[in-house]
């Protein structure tokens, strides 16, 4: 089209002169996971560290599916061997073939990392389900209903607490919070609040928190609205409150 350096701004502008469409929201997580996973495989210079987030207690930490990545290297090695064969034969067009194989390798990597991300999601969901089942089926599980408080009278919640297996809180009709605010779940033990972490409800107002049982007998369960990231002791308005039966 043009190889005049003067036209580079024109080419750049053509790149932007298209209808601007925001990519789907979930693509962000996929891209970040895929990019860093790909780099961890083959770039010794770059060490990716996921940044620590303020520990939401919503789901149990998944087992890292590190073993599954071992299924891919042989595919990559096979593709690399093919590249070596093509290069040494020096065929006309072999270079083009090499480029194609490079693309294939890149695609395999992309697919592999996408699969790993799916697998990680699956493991996370499965681990959470198992934990829920363990809590609900525990011999020592107790049920406490949580009622909506004045700011959110329509909200409801349930806490299933097993001192040995952990705690499950499920809530409905929680309103979405403004930016910079989050919900935080508490148990009151011996008059002191124990945090079970922060959480945000789904768009339909539902939320689930799975957490370790508090250290001691629960006197009450509460959900408060706090600054993003959570706080060591409750400061904001209570939206759900429940007292276990003795």
């Amino acid at each position: 089209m043009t190889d005049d350096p003067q036209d580079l701004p024109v080419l750049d502008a053509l790149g932007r002169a298209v209808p601007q469409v925001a990519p789907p929201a979930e693509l962000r997580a996929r891209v970040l996971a895929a990019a860093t996973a790909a780099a961890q495989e083959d770039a010794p210079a770059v060490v990716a560290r996921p940044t620590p987030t303020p520990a939401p207690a919503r789901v149990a930490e998944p087992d890292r599916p590190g073993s599954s990545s071992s299924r891919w290297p042989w595919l990559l090695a096979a593709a690399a061997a093919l590249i070596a064969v093509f290069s040494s034969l020096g065929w006309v067009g072999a270079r083009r073939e090499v480029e194609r194989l490079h693309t294939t390798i890149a695609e395999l990597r992309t697919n592999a990392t996408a699969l790993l991300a799916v697998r990680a999601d699956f493991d996370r969901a499965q681990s959470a389900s198992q934990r829920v089942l363990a809590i609900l089926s525990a011999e020592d599980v107790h049920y406490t209903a949580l009622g909506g408080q004045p700011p959110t009278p329509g909200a409801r919640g349930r806490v299933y607490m097993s001192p040995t297996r952990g705690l499950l809180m499920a809530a409905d009709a929680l309103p979405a919070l403004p930016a910079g605010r989050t919900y935080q779940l508490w148990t009151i033990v011996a008059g002191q609040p124990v945090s079970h972490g922060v959480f945000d409800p789904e768009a339909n107002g539902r939320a689930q928190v799975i957490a370790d049982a508090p250290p001691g007998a629960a006197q009450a369960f509460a959900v408060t609205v706090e600054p993003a990231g959570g706080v060591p002791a409750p400061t904001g308005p209570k939206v759900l409150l429940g007292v276990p039966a003795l």
Partner: protein
Amino acid sequence: MLDLDRQCITRIAAGDQTGLADLYDRHATAVYSLALRIVKRPQDAEDVTQQVFTQAWRTAARYDHGRGVVAAWLLMMSRSRALDCLRRRTAARDSSSDDAVMAAIPDPGPSVEYVVATKQQVTRAQTALDALPPEQREAVELAYYGGLTQSEIAERTSTPLGTVKSRVRSALQALRAAMGGSGLHAGEQS
């Protein structure tokens, strides 16, 4: 703006994942939009976007800051990956792949002083693109968004090659004029 991009690249090169997240937040829409314009299918555009940011993450450590504007680098990768994707899709019927299609528009080398187009300039380019006679506009769009060589455009549009060449030339002249010509290279942003 540009400094923020460079900071992102520096952070990515140091292995900081939040650098990539910031770079994504700043440019994902532009990268995705260009890919979508070329490949048409959202699924493919998502794959291209993923490839672009994966490549950015992997090559940030070797990124030459003298080579130009980060956004332009990302858009170039987006276009190039999107055209790859397009070519793979049509590979079955494509027997003329020996043509160096990509030679139609070369990537700027490290020595080229690349100047980013401002939003205003983009609007101007968009307006100028809209103002082109339909046959010139078609030629430019097939070359840039379709990755076709001028011979392929001639074949596709059943037009003599010489006519295609003059259409592209005229279109580029009009676009260059609309962009303010060489005045762009004053480099007020670089």
